[in-house]
């Protein structure tokens, strides 16, 4: 074999390498997969015995496992606590756990399995918007229930999903209100290049436009991007009052390290993040984020007996070094909300629960949350927090009262034309 031929073979092999690399990089972000055709609207849920089955569907493997495992842990804690206090409508919860494997199609498949072969009364889980969108037709087709515990980009209200995380008007808009109140006159938007940051930034720009805040720049980095020197240079040159960060995953680490290396700090230009919770601080490095701001509805440091009990129970079950975060708390609350709905309806049937849902409230670790029967979101209090030297987040500002969910931003004049 001549040297030239060897080289050609090597080059074609390299092409294979790259394709393989791109394919594996793309795995986590597949969107728009649709579920298997769901067969019937009639449910097979067995309510005759003294136990009732529910499904937990989280990614226990793959790239999202790092986040979703924590949600699974807090769901298990909630189920255990409900069972030890007598169950729901006198029935013990029997949990069926499935692994979504960080793959939207798997979520749809496993959701179908939980509904039609395990016959669960409700499913709790999902994290990425892609996984939720993939499961939606499955739950609507089978007329079953999904409780989704993560903040998301809004613009959705399925009759078969309850959204227990924040929608945009309970997280992003309060963060903007806070910045405006602090006298911030200009913003720089940095986000990962996919649907959530782009949708969120559209809303931020409309808000800024209506409130006299100047947008100095808008930059997107591909998911998993590792070199932020150019983006940070742009941020530095623009000299905005604050940075609004919708980066997701590992990119946050590279971004915050670069931010600090470039000589920027919370004192000169604070960064408000919507995807960094207590879990993530350790991986980013406390030195790199201390003093930066976050927007959520729950922090481990919330000072209430209910939260103290939650944190203590969680640590007792999973270890003292574990922390609790917003999505974990929203998942924990979702199980208790479902319990309250079922008890109000005196039934496990989807239609009965849906009818009973409006106004059901639960005294959650984050404070009292109330279900909105019309859009299936819940009223939550918004909290702007600051990362403290103890690697926990401390609330700096609160919306005071729970904010009514408005996933389509219908009550905001400036948002007209955004949501159609």
């Amino acid at each position, binding site marked *: *074999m*001549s*040297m030239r031929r*060897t*080289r*050609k*073979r*090597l*080059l074609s*092999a*390299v092409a*294979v*390498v*790259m394709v*393989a*690399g*791109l394919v*594996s*990089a793309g795995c986590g972000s597949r969107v728009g997969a649709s579920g298997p055709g769901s067969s019937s609207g009639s449910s097979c849920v067995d309510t005759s015995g003294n136990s009732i089955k529910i499904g937990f569907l989280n990614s226990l493997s793959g*790239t999202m*496992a*790092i986040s979703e*495992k924590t949600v699974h842990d807090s769901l298990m804690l909630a189920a255990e606590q409900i069972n030890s206090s007598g169950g729901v409508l006198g029935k013990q919860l029997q949990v069926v756990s499935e692994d979504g494997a960080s793959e939207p199609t798997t979520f749809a498949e496993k959701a179908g399995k939980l509904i039609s072969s395990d016959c669960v009364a409700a499913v709790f889980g999902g994290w990425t918007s892609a996984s939720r969108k993939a499961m939606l037709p499955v739950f609507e087709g089978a007329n079953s229930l999904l409780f989704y515990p993560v903040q998301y980009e809004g613009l959705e209200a399925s009759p078969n999903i309850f959204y227990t995380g924040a929608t945009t008007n309970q997280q992003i808009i309060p963060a903007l209100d806070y910045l405006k109140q602090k006298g911030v006159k200009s913003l720089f938007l940095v986000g990962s*290049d996919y649907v959530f940051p782009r949708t969120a930034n559209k809303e931020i720009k409309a808000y800024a436009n209506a409130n006299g805040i100047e947008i100095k720049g808008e*930059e*997107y*980095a*591909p998911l*998993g*991007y*590792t*070199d932020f*020197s*150019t*983006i940070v*240079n*742009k941020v*530095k*040159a623009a000299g905005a009052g604050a940075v609004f960060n919708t980066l997701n995953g*590992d990119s*946050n*680490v*590279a971004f915050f*390290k*670069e931010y*600090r*290396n*470039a*000589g920027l700090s919370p004192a000169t230009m604070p960064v408000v993040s919507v995807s960094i919770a207590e*879990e*993530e601080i*350790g*991986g*980013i*490095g*406390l*030195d790199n984020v201390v003093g930066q701001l976050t927007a959520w509805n729950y922090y481990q440091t919330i000072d209430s007996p209910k939260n103290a009990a939650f944190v203590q129970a969680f640590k007792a079950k999973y270890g003292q070094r574990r922390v609790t975060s917003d999505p974990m708390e929203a998942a924990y609350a979702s199980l208790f909300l479902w319990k309250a709905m079922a008890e109000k309806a005196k039934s496990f049937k989807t239609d009965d629960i849906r009818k009973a849902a409006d106004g059901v409230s639960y005294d959650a670790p984050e404070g009292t949350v109330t279900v909105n029967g019309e859009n299936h979101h819940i009223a939550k209090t918004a909290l702007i927090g600051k990362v403290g030297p103890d690697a926990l987040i401390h609330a700096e500002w609160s919306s005071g009262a729970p904010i009514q969910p408005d996933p389509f931003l219908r009550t905001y004049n400036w948002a007209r034309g955004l949501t159609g």
Partner: protein
Amino acid sequence: MQALYSQLVAGISLGSILLLAALGLALTFGQMGVINMAHGEFIMAGSYTAFVIQKVIADAGISLLLAIPLGFLVGGLMGVLLEATLIRRMYHRPLDTLLVTWGVSLILQQAARDIFGAPNVDVRAPSWLSGGIDVGITHVPAARLFILMLAAAAVAGLSLVLKTMPLGRRIRGVVQNRDLAETVGISTRNTDRLTFFIGSGLAGIAGVALTLLGSTGPTLGTSYIVDAFLVVVVGGIGQIKGAVIAAFGLGLLQATFEYSTTASIAKVMVFVVIVVFLQIRPQGIFSVRTRSLA
């Protein structure tokens, strides 16, 4: 003007990172023709070495300086192990090597997850590397300057070994004509193993350096493997100086495009430039001329 300088710094710095990630590959892929998909995981192993050493020695400065040789050792030993158990059986079968080493890379990622946990870990930067230095009118982050110097030292060290030392002469001999090298009494087995040790060790050093800039987690290596292959292919197989020029060229291109467009578009544009370049010069910037018939 300010922007020009700061982008120049960004581009050179990106180039030095690409170079560090690709230098080991320039040796194993470039010189030996082995497509090692697990090269990225050797980088990851270097990062975790820095993390473990920092657990033992709390001082971030001392532990970083100690992590560089130890990262080299850890990466190198993993490389030798891989070479001795698997790759050795697959010389001249590039596609098989590709698949097998990809499997190894997945296994190593999962191993890291099992040992260190799925969440990222934090490696603190020493205080003398956080912040930066003002050079004239622009600001150079100290960590990036450190990586640039480390990359320069690695290239200088590698060139020194290849040009002046007996081992280097043997490596070059085997690359240029394996059969003839064997006939004159060079043990190609030992040479292959040593080449792999140095190449993988350099990946370990890259891993240590990258803890200063990015996340340390099980998937760290996958972020760099494609870029590292690009650098070697563009630079030309079999030449270290090609990798150096390609790394800085690609770094500067990315920084320039990214400043005038966006990060995603810049990546696409760099890919397009590479494809066009390889159409014109499929052998890369430099290539080894050889009389070998094999």
